[in-house]
């Protein structure tokens, strides 16, 4: 155990907090039962206060760790031999920011959940497992050793199951099953990759990994290089599954609509980022200069981006749209990260764009999902056709949602614009660097990027229009009853403020934030790169043009949506149509049949055949052969007896009486009985044993003679 001990507390406090919460509130907490008036001890409010307290205390610990860091002059912490390899944490730029973002997310989410759940059932489970997820997430972000990352990653995956399955509806359980399956498969594949990596590089410590990987690239032995790429691919699969990378994005659109909205905000805002964290580590530390790997990530990023955006455009459910939007945004981030190995030395802009995009996306999704929570807890509907115009007369909610929606679409003066522009700049830079087919590809990629940005604008406008602009179809009741409480508003205002603040003060703060986040393991932006970041002209005409193109596309697509995906009723109301072909569901189309039908069927039929049918068949043949032999032998003996009867014993023959009659009848009875025994496999085995023993005796005879 050495280093800054506060880091240990940062990671483990939420776990302890979960335990304390259970201790303090567990006893007095029995689920409400409407028929049972005797159960009075039910204090959800105490539970919320407790959870909130844990989160706030965690924030204080983080601040303390930040202040205390320079004093001990180290930002690392190591716990020897625990869990075999030991645990290793660091607390540098990126990690600090993400610890803060996570804390903010949990704080806001908990604030809202008080009103959202009210006196719902199983809140104890939700809150305690939520705190465990929180601790595990912090563990992932603070880990500086891939083994540590893996451990917390798995804890997080399993504990967050309670988020998805919370409502216990059939759909929720199905989605939760998908979620868990993706998490478990991803975890196992990643484990295999990590072990291969460990074998090749001899370490999983991030600070040594870079050197080790560089050496392998330098040595250039094809065998070990190939292994390194295989390991990298497996790890990418594992982290990508959590991030929602195509083709493993399936859990996102399923899990979000069914999970409670405050939990969705966390799932989409933070948990996916832990997957991104892993991809970032891969691209920065291991494949820092590998074209192949970077290119793969970029391609996957682009596909994810387009798939998510398309799904979102077609979706007619508030939270499902947001979930698909998450997929799409993850694609943007992946593209940015994938550019890092491609650009190598020149990757400053792409990297800072990707880092900033991560933070931004967390904030946007927090705002948007909590707005969805504010809608859902008042009318319990999410379908756009059923919540049409719900927010028309709720100005505060309207503005907050608008900030989130415009931010995520990359409208200038909000923080989304900055990150999007930086990644775009990186892409343009690479177009200038490359040549030939690659150049053409990236030119196309740039357009895909801009159009996807436009689609973001379009589907966010669609949501905003549907919920806050369209005329309501029915009366929703008085405004006062529909307005969310003060705590909920506070929870949304905090991140919304940050979005505006980071956007308007881009020039002032963004550079600083990015440079701070650039401290990652051993790396940091050097002087030259800092200069580049400080010298950025974010609001130059060139950059604004990109945004303008995007928004123009967005407007066109929005018009198309209104035209083709909506129908105007006779009374002037809009009806949102779900035009997405049902069969185009990669999960229902491929994964589920493959994993639940085809594979089990194949395994089972092969298994039953080899383990049960085949031995029985062999045994039957053996028995037939054996009985044929026996018949031959006994027939021979019988014929001898008959012969002797007729010749030698003929004079003594008494009568043609059957001398063996008794024996025969006895044997016939035995044969029947025998059949019952002989029809078992085990009996066949016993016979084989006899045969083998005879062989053995023969062998022994050979040996000793």
């Amino acid at each position, binding site marked *: 155990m050495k280093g800054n001990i506060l880091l240990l507390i940062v990671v483990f406090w939420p776990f302890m907090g979960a335990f304390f919460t259970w201790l303090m509130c567990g006893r007095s907490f029995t689920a409400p039962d409407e028929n049972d008036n005797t159960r009075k001890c039910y204090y959800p409010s105490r539970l919320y206060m407790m959870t909130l307290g844990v989160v706030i205390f965690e924030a204080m610990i983080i601040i303390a760790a930040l202040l205390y860091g320079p004093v001990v002059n180290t930002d690392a912490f190591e716990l020897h*031999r*625990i*869990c*075999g390899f030991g645990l290793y944490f660091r607390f540098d730029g990126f990690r600090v920011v993400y610890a803060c973002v996570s804390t903010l997310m949990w704080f806001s989410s908990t604030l809202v959940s008080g009103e959202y759940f009210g006196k719902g059932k199983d809140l104890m*489970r939700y809150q305690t497992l939520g705190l465990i997820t929180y601790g595990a997430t912090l563990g992932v972000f603070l880990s500086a050793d891939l083994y540590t990352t*893996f*451990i917390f990653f*798995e*804890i997080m995956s*399993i504990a967050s199951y309670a988020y998805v*399955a919370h409502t*216990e*509806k*059939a759909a929720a*359980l199905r989605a*939760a*099953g998908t979620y*868990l*399956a993706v998490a*478990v*498969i991803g*975890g*196992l*594949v990643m*484990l*295999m990759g990590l*072990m*291969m990596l460990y*074998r090749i590089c001899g370490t999983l410590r991030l600070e040594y990994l870079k050197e080790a990987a560089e050496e392998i690239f330098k040595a250039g032995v094809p065998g070990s290089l190939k292994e390194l790429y295989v390991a990298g691919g497996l790890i990418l699969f594992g982290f990508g599954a959590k991030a929602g990378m195509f083709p493993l994005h399936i859990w996102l659109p399923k899990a979000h609509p069914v999970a409670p909205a405050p939990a969705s905000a966390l799932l989409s805002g933070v948990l996916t980022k832990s997957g991104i964290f892993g991809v970032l580590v891969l691209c920065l530390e291991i494949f820092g200069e590998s074209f192949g790997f970077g290119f793969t990530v970029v391609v996957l990023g682009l596909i994810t981006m387009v798939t998510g955006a398309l799904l979102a455009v077609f979706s007619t459910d508030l939270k499902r749209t947001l979930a698909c939007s998450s997929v799409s945004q993850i694609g943007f981030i992946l593209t940015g990260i994938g550019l890092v190995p491609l650009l190598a030395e020149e990757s400053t802009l792409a990297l800072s764009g990707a880092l900033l995009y991560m933070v931004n996306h967390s904030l946007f999704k927090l705002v948007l999902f909590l707005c969805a929570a504010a809608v859902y807890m008042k009318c319990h509907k999410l379908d756009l056709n059923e919540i049409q115009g719900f927010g028309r007369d709720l100005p505060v909610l309207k503005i907050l949602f608008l900030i989130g929606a415009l931010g995520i679409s990359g409208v200038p003066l909000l923080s989304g614009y900055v990150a999007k522009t930086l990644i775009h700049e990186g892409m343009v830079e690479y177009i200038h660097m490359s040549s030939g087919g690659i150049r053409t590809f990236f030119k196309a990629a740039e357009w895909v990027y801009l159009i996807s940005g436009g689609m973001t604008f379009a589907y966010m406008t669609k949501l905003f229009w549907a919920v806050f602009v369209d005329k309501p179809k029915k009366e929703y009741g008085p405004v006062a009853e529909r307005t969310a409480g003060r705590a909920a508003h506070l929870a949304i205002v905090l991140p919304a403020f940050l979005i505006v603040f980071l956007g308007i003060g881009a020039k002032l703060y963004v550079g600083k934030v990015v440079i701070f986040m650039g401290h990652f393991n051993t790396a940091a932006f050097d002087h030259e790169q800092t200069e580049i970041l400080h010298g950025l002209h974010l609001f130059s005409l060139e950059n604004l043009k990109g945004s303008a193109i995007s928004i123009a596309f967005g407007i066109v697509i929005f018009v198309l949506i209104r035209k083709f995906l909506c129908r105007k009723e006779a009374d002037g109301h809009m009806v949102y149509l779900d035009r997405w072909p049902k069969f185009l569901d990669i999960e229902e189309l491929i994964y589920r049949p493959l994993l639940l039908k085809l594979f*089990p069927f194949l*395994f*089972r039929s092969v*298994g039953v055949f*080899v*383990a*049960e049918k*085949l*031995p029985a068949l062999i045994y039957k043949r053996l028995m037939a052969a054996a009985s044929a032999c026996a018949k031959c032998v006994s027939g021979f003996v019988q014929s001898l007896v008959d012969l002797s009867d007729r010749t030698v014993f003929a004079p003594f023959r008494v009568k043609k009486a059957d001398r063996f009659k008794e024996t025969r009848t006895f044997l016939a009875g035995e044969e029947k009985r025998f059949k019952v025994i002989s029809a*078992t*496999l*085990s*009996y066949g*085995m*016993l016979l*084989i*044993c006899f045969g*083998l*023993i005879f062989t*053995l005796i023969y062998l*022994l005879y050979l*040996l000793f003679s």
Partner: protein
Amino acid sequence: MPTFLIAFPVFFPIFAGALLIAFPGMKRRTRNICTFTVSIINLVVVMLLIINGMTMDMEMIRFTSQLVFAFRIDGLGKFFAILVSVLWPFSLLYSYEYMEDDSRQGTFYTFFMMTLGAVLGIAFARDFFSMYVFYEILSLVTFPLVMHEMSPEAVKAGWHYLVYMLGGAAFAFIGMVIILIYGDTLTFTYGGVLGQAASGNESMLVFVFFITFMGLGVKAAIMPFGKWLIEAAVAPMPVTGLLHAVAVVKAGAFAIIRLIYYVYGADFLKGSWAQYLCMAVCAFTILYGSTMAVKELHLKRRLAYSTISNLSYVVFGAVLMSPAGMTGSLTHLVMHAVAKIGLFFSIGALMHTNHKVYQYEIDGIGKKMKWTFAAFTLCGMSLIGIPQFGGFISKFRLLDAVIDDGGIPAYIGGMCLIISALLTAVYLLTTVQKAYFPADGHLCDGYDKVRDPGWKMLVPIWFSVIMSVVLGLAWQPLVDFIKWGIL
């Protein structure tokens, strides 16, 4: 420390079991106290032996210069003996509650105690011959336990059990005779005992190894000889939980490890066709067990299938024929034992207290049987291999051995491990999901009357949970023990 003490833990329980027959009218309480005391005394003696004895030898009967009935304590034996004798008292404790309404408890405890002696005999046997003797004894004394219920299917299962066991032992016998001829000695020696006589007969020896492997594999439920384990699930839960997840089946795996590393020697077998065939058989069994477990809805049988699969993990590690493989194998032997006993016992608690046994009968039951299902979940996580539970460590070690081996067959086996881990997650977590997240609020029949079992059941269950977690967090001592004490 007198050397005869080695024989004590072997013969004392057998003797005690025999005495139980002599006093048929004994009261339940008295008998419980007696059996528990015996198992505790045994545990203490085993511990004493292990702490004090370096490597002790004791010859009991000398038939010829080669055939000697003898005991010895070595690293591997210690390992297995500790595992078994620690779990025994807890299982006894569990059985006191589980068997409380049973009419033939006297017989049950007689054979239950005798089994302990037989298993320890296998652990402490010095040579192949002594091990073979106890191997047969083990088959015979567990046979009445399988058909304890005396229902027609139990009797049928019992007979099948016996035939499988004896048939398997016959193969092992052939192997023993061959070793008697070609080996220098029958005494287990790490690295193998094959001597001068072996040269020139390699291909025959490899073939004999294979049939011996399959013969011993019957106890370790290698497919196609593993069906008995499923049928034997009619036995009372302490039997299924302890004997058919730990003692008997692990004795098979233990014997295989002895055969590979202490009789033939890993170097002799490595790279032979027999190794690849054994690997294929194990890989197949791993997948077979898991797949069948997914389909099975009877929870006890599901766990039995899972046992088939997990035993093959152990054997697979052994047939990798490397120190890393053996480490993985032994680690999984322990971790699986600890986790599986917890799983079986939780299901046993469910069966005993609430008379439910099918997966579709347990909607929402986890909210009432809090302690039982919390344990089930945790042990299940260990078995799936979620870090930082015990099962994760053993799978980690096994995969490590696979990568260390580096061959294509090993990698295929590794893939089977991963697929099987996924299937494990499916068949255990669907149960957990049913128990904790009843779909659309549908609760099982008689939900109001559902309750947790008594402390006698909960203590053993939670002991295995705690062991799973502790071994998962601090596994270094275990691996060190394997590394320094055995290899």
